[in-house]
């Protein structure tokens, strides 16, 4: 376990004990709620983790580097952003997936674009958003979020 994870455990553990001391019942209730949320996701988590193994075995790193690497950065970034906009997987499982691609040699620029549109832009939830806030709001918010996802991604690429 690296230092980062260990310190997270430390902080979380301390907060947890403090919460228990303050109000046991309330804390246990919220744990029950969080457990329900986890239960809904566990199938997807396990599925993605084993899918990563398949990807790493059958897609050689050179291919990943070629497609998502530095060479055709702009196109791969736009496509990643588009894929992120239409998929609806919890961000929770997206991080290990994206991490495995980056470990295999993918550039971080498309990775960031994907992660950002995945959560901020929702094509699947668009009808719901339109119904609640009107077409103009939903359309402009999603469009702006898409554009800024690209900007964030390209800026990250320049800085890192």
């Amino acid at each position, binding site marked *: 376990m690296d230092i980062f994870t260990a310190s997270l*455990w430390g902080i979380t553990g301390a*907060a947890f004990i403090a919460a228990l001391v303050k109000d046991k019942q*309330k804390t246990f209730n919220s744990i029950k*709620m969080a457990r329900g949320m986890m239960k809904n996701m566990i199938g997807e988590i396990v*599925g993605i983790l084993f*899918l990563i193994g398949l990807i790493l075995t059958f897609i050689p790193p050179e291919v990943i580097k070629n497609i998502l690497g530095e060479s055709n950065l702009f196109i791969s970034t736009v496509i990643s952003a588009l894929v992120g906009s239409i998929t609806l997987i919890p961000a929770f499982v997206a991080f290990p997936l994206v991490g495995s691609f980056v470990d295999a040699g993918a550039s971080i620029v498309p990775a960031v674009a994907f992660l950002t549109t995945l959560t*901020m832009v929702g094509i699947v939830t668009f009808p719901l958003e339109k119904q*609640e806030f009107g077409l103009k709001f939903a359309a402009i918010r999603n469009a702006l979020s898409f554009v800024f996802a690209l900007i*964030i991604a390209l800026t990250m690429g320049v800085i890192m």
Partner: protein
Amino acid sequence: MIEIIKKNKLLTAVSLAYVFLFMAMPDKAYLSVKNSMYYIIEMLEIMPVIFILTSIIEAWVPKEVIINGFGEKAGIKGIIFSFLLGSFSAGPIYAAFPICKMLLKKGASIANVVIILSAWAVIKVPMLANEAKFLGPNFMGLRWILTVMSILIISYLMTVFVKKEDIPIGEEKSLSKATGIDIKEQYCIGCGLCEKLMPQHFKVIDKKAKWKESTLNDTQINELKAIIDKCPVKAIDFR
């Protein structure tokens, strides 16, 4: 059984691929498991942390206080409140829709609602831990800073393009005319709170709350008003 498969399409597909692989190319299958192992271990290391963080935030961040004090907040304070509310909430972005709608009705500005929605989507404290784990703390930190800046710009641009009149805000119905209750099924998370508080009016069936038809008198309408506020995803409203 079919239910389970339907609910876990991805897991089913991946399992089938592995079964097939173990029969056809066992060495490739072993390699795949080995490749997954690193990520599985990492996930196991971080999952309890995320789980407990989510629970603690859910229990101890006074979301009701934030939401209720919203109407008056403007300027910098409103912006900070919006970021906090979004960052400390659980659930996917569409879970934020009814809450934001309610805040709009209460007088929150479009800019702040956009901040809540966006922060709700991308900035989640437990998720930041997860991101740092798999992509590194530097990556997470930089993306966080850039995202916060972008959200501020987006929220400003939105106020330029979208005015409050563009948003369909249901008429605030006069309560004496309320004839019943509407439950938005797509938002209800089946937490059972409404049933627990008013079993005579609500019943949760298949994880969705249902309204038991009945006529309403004034006391009941007042009681129902309290429940409408209590529903964690604001799925209940008068009809």
